[in-house]
C-alpha cells in the first residue's frame, strides 16, 4: 500500500537562529526511515510524468522503488546511469518546477520529495561505497571539454562512460565551476563536489586546471593535439553591473566576487589568506538564487542587517521558493518593489548608503512579468556599508574572441543547436550558460548530456 500522506516527509534542518551564524550545511538529509517512508508515497505511475520533467531523464520511479525496499545500491546504480552528479542535483535542482511539478501526487497535496530522495541515495553511496567506479574500456579516441562546471563535468562523465579519453580544461585552480565558486558551503558542501569529481576521475577523466582556453590554448590547437571533438561549457561568468553612480566605491561587490572570495577562496574561515569586507549593513541587489546566496553569506559573516533589494514583488522573485523561505527565516530583510538609483560614499570612497526609489507594477512586459515603474519623488536612503550586485551574468568573451568561425548572438551567447549542442564550427559543441546565458545547474547538465551523445555520434560517423 502506498503511503497516502498528503505531505512530504520534512527534512531536518539546522535551526535558523543557529545556522545564520555558521557555514555548515542547512539541510541535514533524510534518515533511512524517513527516506523509505517518503519513497512509499510514490505511486510508481506507468506513464512516469516526473521523468519528462527531468533535464537528464533519470528513471525516477525506478530508483524510488529500490529505496522503498531498502536496496540503496541498486537505487544509486539507476541514478548514476543518468546523472554524473546526483549528490549535487539532489541539493540544488529546482525540483519544484521540474520533476516534482509533474508528480501525480502533487495534484492533491505535495508531490513526492524526489530531490530529497535523490540526495539521500547519493549521500548513502558516498558514505558506503567501497570501490570507486570501474574505468570503462577505452575506445582509443580523444575528446576535449572546456570548463569543469556542471555542463562540462556531465559531458565528460558521459563520454568517459562510452570509453573516450576525455580531458577537461579548467581556467580556475579547482574543478567544479559555479559549484565551487558560487554556491555556498551551507547549501552545497565542497567535499560533496570533490567526491563527485573524484568519481569522474576514476572513470578516466583527466582534469587540467589553470588552463584558460582562448589564452594559453586555442580550440584550433586542441584539434591539432588530436582531440576529435570539443565541448564548450565555459559558463556565463561575466558579472553585470547596474551602471548607476557609485558602483566603483569600496564595499561594492559583484555577487561573483563576493561569493568567490567566500567559497572558492575560503574567506569565511578565520585564518583565510583572502580578505573580505565584514560589513555591518549589507544590501544585495537582485532576486535570484545568487542574490539569496550572497545575502545569506553576508549574514553569516556577521552582518547585523542584510537587505534584499528587488524591483518587483515577492511573486516575481526568480529565486527558488525554498531559498527565499530559508533566507527569510534567517532574518534577511526583503525590501521589495525598490530599485537602487545610486550608491553614496564617504571621502575615502567607502560605501555609506544606497539611494533607492520605490516601484510599482505596471502592465506585463515582453517577459510576461509585470513591468516595474518608478514612483517619482519616492527616493529614500538605505544605510549600508556594503552593496552586492546580483543582477545576472553574461558569457565570457574569451573563447568567442579567439575562435574563428564560432557564431555568437547579440548577447555574446554561443549559438548552438538546442538538441545536440552543435555550433557553427564542425566538431565543436556547446552547452550550459555559455549558450543560454545564466540559468540553472541542471539545465547545464542536461545540455552537457545531450552534447555528449551528439559528440559520440559525430566522432563515430567521422571514423566510419
Amino acid at each position, binding site marked *: 500500500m502506498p503511503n497516502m500522506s498528503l505531505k512530504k516527509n520534512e527534512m531536518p534542518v539546522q535551526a535558523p537562529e543557529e545556522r545564520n551564524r555558521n557555514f555548515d550545511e542547512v539541510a541535514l538529509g533524510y534518515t533511512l526511515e524517513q527516506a523509505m517512508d517518503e519513497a512509499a508515497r510514490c505511486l510508481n505511475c506507468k506513464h512516469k510524468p516526473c521523468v519528462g520533467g527531468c533535464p537528464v531523464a533519470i528513471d525516477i520511479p525506478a530508483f524510488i522503488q529500490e529505496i522503498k525496499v531498502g536496496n540503496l545500491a541498486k537505487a544509486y546504480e539507476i541514478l548514476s546511469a543518468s546523472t554524473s552528479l546526483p549528490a549535487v542535483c539532489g541539493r540544488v535542482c529546482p525540483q519544484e518546477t521540474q520533476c516534482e511539478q509533474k508528480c501525480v501526487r502533487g495534484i492533491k497535496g505535495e508531490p513526492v520529495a524526489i530531490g530529497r530522495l535523490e540526495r539521500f541515495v547519493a549521500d548513502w553511496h558516498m558514505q558506503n561505497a567501497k570501490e570507486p567506479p570501474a574505468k570503462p574500456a577505452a575506445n582509443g579516441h580523444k575528446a576535449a571539454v572546456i570548463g569543469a562546471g556542471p555542463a562540462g563535468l556531465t559531458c565528460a562523465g558521459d563520454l568517459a562512460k562510452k570509453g573516450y579519453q576525455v580531458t577537461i580544461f579548467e581556467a580556475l585552480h579547482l574543478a567544479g565551476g559555479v559549484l565551487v565558486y558560487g554556491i555556498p558551503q551551507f547549501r552545497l558542501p565542497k567535499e560533496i563536489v570533490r567526491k563527485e569529481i573524484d568519481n569522474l576521475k576514476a572513470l578516466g577523466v583527466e582534469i587540467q586546471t589553470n588552463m584558460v582556453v582562448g*589564452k*594559453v590554448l586555442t580550440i584550433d590547437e586542441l584539434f591539432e593535439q588530436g582531440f576529435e571533438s570539443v565541448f564548450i561549457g565555459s559558463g556565463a*561568468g561575466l*558579472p553585470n553591473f547596474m551602471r548607476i553612480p557609485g558602483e*566603483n566605491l569600496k564595499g561594492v*561587490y559583484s555577487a561573483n*566576487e563576493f561569493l568567490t572570495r567566500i567559497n572558492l577562496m*575560503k574567506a569565511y574561515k578565520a585564518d583565510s589568506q583572502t580578505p573580505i569586507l565584514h560589513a555591518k549593513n549589507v544590501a544585495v541587489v537582485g532576486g535570484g538564487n545568487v542574490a539569496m546566496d550572497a545575502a545569506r553569506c553576508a549574514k553569516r559573516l556577521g552582518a547585523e542587517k542584510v537587505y534584499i533589494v528587488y524591483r518587483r514583488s515577492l511573486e516575481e522573485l526568480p529565486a527558488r521558493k525554498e531559498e527565499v523561505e530559508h533566507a527569510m527565516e534567517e532574518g534577511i530583510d526583503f525590501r521589495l518593489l525598490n530599485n537602487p538609483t545610486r550608491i553614496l560614499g564617504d571621502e575615502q570612497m567607502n560605501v555609506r548608503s544606497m539611494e533607492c526609489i520605490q516601484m510599482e507594477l505596471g502592465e506585463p512586459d515582453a517577459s510576461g512579468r509585470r513591468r516595474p515603474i518608478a514612483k517619482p519623488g519616492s527616493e529614500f536612503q538605505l544605510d549600508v556599508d556594503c552593496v552586492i550586485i546580483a543582477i545576472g551574468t553574461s558569457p565570457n568573451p*574569451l573563447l568567442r574572441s579567439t575562435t574563428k568561425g564560432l557564431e555568437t548572438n547579440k548577447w555574446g551567447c554561443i549559438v548552438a543547436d538546442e538538441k545536440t549542442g552543435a555550433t557553427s564550427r564542425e566538431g565543436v559543441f556547446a552547452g550550459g550558460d555559455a549558450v543560454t546565458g545564466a540559468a540553472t545547474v541542471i539545465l547545464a547538465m542536461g545540455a552537457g548530456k545531450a552534447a555528449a551523445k551528439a559528440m559520440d555520434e559525430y566522432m563515430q560517423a567521422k571514423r566510419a
Partner: protein
Amino acid sequence: MYTILKKQALNPTVTLMEIDAPPIAKKAEPGQFIILRVDEDGERIPLTIADFDRQRGTVTIIFQIVGATTERLNHLNQGDCLQDFVGPLGVPSHTEGLQKVCVIGGGVGSAIAYPIAKKLHQNGCQVHAIVGFRNKDLVILEEEFRSVSQRFLLMSDDGTAGEKGLVTDALKKLLDAGEQYDEVIAIGPLVMMKFVCKLTKEYGVKTVVSMNPIMIDGTGMCGGCRLSVGGQTKFACVDGPDFDGHLVDFDEAIQRAAMYKAFEQQRREETCKLFEGV
C-alpha cells in the same frame, strides 16, 4: 608542476624567479600577466610577466615583497614548486608601428616596463628609458634597460643613483628639449603614473599605463579589478592591463587599491612571525 628554476634577489625587497611553464612561455607577450598561488589555501595574486623564453619554456616574474603572499613566495627556493601558475592573461601591450617611445619605469614597475622596452627595441623603435627608484640599493635592471634604449636616464629620490629627482622631472626635461614621442609608456606606482599622465596631458603626448588592481580570477569573472576609464567601467584583467592614461581615474584606483590594507598588514605581520619562528 610549476618549478622555480632560478631565484635571484635583485635588491633587498625585490626578487626575480624563473618558472618552468612551457605552455605559458609559448604564448606570452609583453604586457600580459600571470596569476599564481604559492600554496593550497593561498590567495591568487596577479604579477605582470617580466620576461619569457619560448625555447626553454620559462616565464620570469619579478615581485616586490609587500604582503603575506609575496613574503611566502619569497621563502620558496630554486627547485621548489608553485601551487598554481596561470596565464598569459590580459591583452598584450601594443607595440606595433611605434617609431619613438619613452618608456618610464618606477620601482618594481621597471620590471614590467623592461620587456616592453625590449620588444620595442627589437621592432626597431627608438626607445628612451627613464627609470626611478628611492635610492641606489633599490635599482634593478639598469644594464638591461641600457642595452635596449638609445637614451637612458636613471633617477633616484635621494640622488644616490643617477640624478636626484622624480621620473617626471626627467620626462619634462626631455619634452622641453623638444623630444617628440609617438607614445609614453609609464609603469610604476599609481601616484607616479598619475603625475606622468598629468604632465604628458599638458604636452599632448599619448600615454599608456599598466594597471595592477586587486584581482581574483583574472579572466573577467569577479569584476574586482574594475576601473573608471573615460567615464566607463573597465575590467583590468580582460580589457587591460594597459589603458590610455589620460582617461584613467587614478584617484579612484588609488582608493580601491587600499581596500584591504589593514587586513593585508595584519596577515603580513603574522606571516613574518611564522617564518621567524621556524
